[in-house]
């Protein structure tokens, strides 16, 4: 159900994505993350087009962490910040982070060893139904994403929505 990828640039880092629907305790989960009981990023899956988008955000966050140039205080907040097309941190959290009333959540974990313990810790905390992480694409709010990332109709003719989103995430610091 969960998806785990290796980061080619950081071979000792792995990224695991877990998707939950019908979530009943989003507020509690967020509190756990704030208190450090959950070591992961809690993301609003309707703002995601594809798991690849998350990998792009994580790779960038790990790179900035290594060179001491993160814009936020932790790796997990940096991942959420990187998803956003703008450099406004509080707006990034509002839109891409999980909110208390959400009924779905994507959990992102960055780790260096086998993920089985971390994964079972998360499943134990979430009261909701875990579905394959790839299914995030079925929750995407296309209209909202197009508006937020300012994707033009012409642009969609020469590439996918994912292409448009990833390009903006990758270069927002110089726009």
């Amino acid at each position, binding site marked *: 159900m969960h998806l785990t*990828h290796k*980061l*080619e*640039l*950081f071979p000792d880092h792995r990224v695991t994505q877990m998707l939950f629907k019908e979530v009943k305790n989003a507020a509690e989960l967020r509190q756990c993350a704030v208190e450090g009981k959950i070591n992961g990023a809690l993301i609003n899956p309707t703002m995601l087009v594809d798991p*690849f988008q998350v*990998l*792009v955000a994580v*790779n*960038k966050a790990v*790179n900035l962490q*290594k*060179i*001491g140039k993160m814009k936020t205080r932790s790796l997990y907040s940096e991942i959420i910040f990187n998803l956003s097309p703008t450099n406004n941190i509080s707006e990034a959290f509002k839109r891409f982070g999980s909110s208390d009333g959400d009924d779905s959540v994507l959990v992102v974990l960055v780790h260096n060893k086998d993920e089985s313990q971390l994964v079972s810790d998360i499943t134990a905390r979430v009261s909701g139904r875990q579905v394959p992480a790839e299914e995030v694409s079925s929750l995407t709010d296309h209209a909202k994403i197009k508006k937020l990332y300012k994707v*033009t109709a*012409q*642009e969609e*003719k*020469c*590439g996918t929505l994912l*292409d*448009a989103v*990833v*390009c*903006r995430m*990758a*270069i927002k610091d*110089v*726009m």
Partner: protein
Amino acid sequence: MAQKESMAVPEFLSKAELVKQGAEARVYRAEFLGKPTIVKERFPKRYRHAVLDEKLTHRRTVQEVRSILRCRRAGISAPVVYFVDYTSHCIFLEEIVGSSTVRDHIASNQRSDSCKKPELERLADRVGQILAKMHDEDVIHGDLTTSNMLLRCGLEDGEFDLFLIDFGLSYISALPEDKGVDLYVLEKAFLSTHPNTEALFERLLKSYAAASSKSSAVIKKLDEVRLRGRKRSMVG
């Protein structure tokens, strides 16, 4: 505090496949985040002053990714940017899998027989249209050659996609002069790479002129630049 530099990218590139060693940059092919990726690495030029060199290299990297996004927004195909590392001056780009350069395409069509002529004309029309669109967005490519255009055949309809690459010398300008010089650079490269293509290039320019409402001032400048070029070569 000294700037911390990550060794992650250099280590990654040491295992990647080198595609091209240029004067300013190396181009590699590798898998990145599970996708076929082209990495363009700008390296320091030892003869330039280190601080100046760093600034120039940074600026080119920034210009390159900005121009790519600007083109894509306007519906001009250019590789997706996956990641930029400003400490090693590397850009990670979508690999246009299964593509060939316009240069190779023209060369192989010229080698075969003349029945390929309509296809080459269609290609010239297309290039003209795309460059018109790019100039209407005020993007000056700075290094237009037929090697910096990639062709990928569409899957179903036999139609092809034309991608512009290598925006390292690009900048933003609305001046007809800059656009004219951009075309002049292409003309020089085109005619020297592909012998006996004067008519084909004229066709490209016609298509450019028809596609852009601002083209007449640009073509006028192109004519001026050509004249200057010729005068220069007469003086020697």
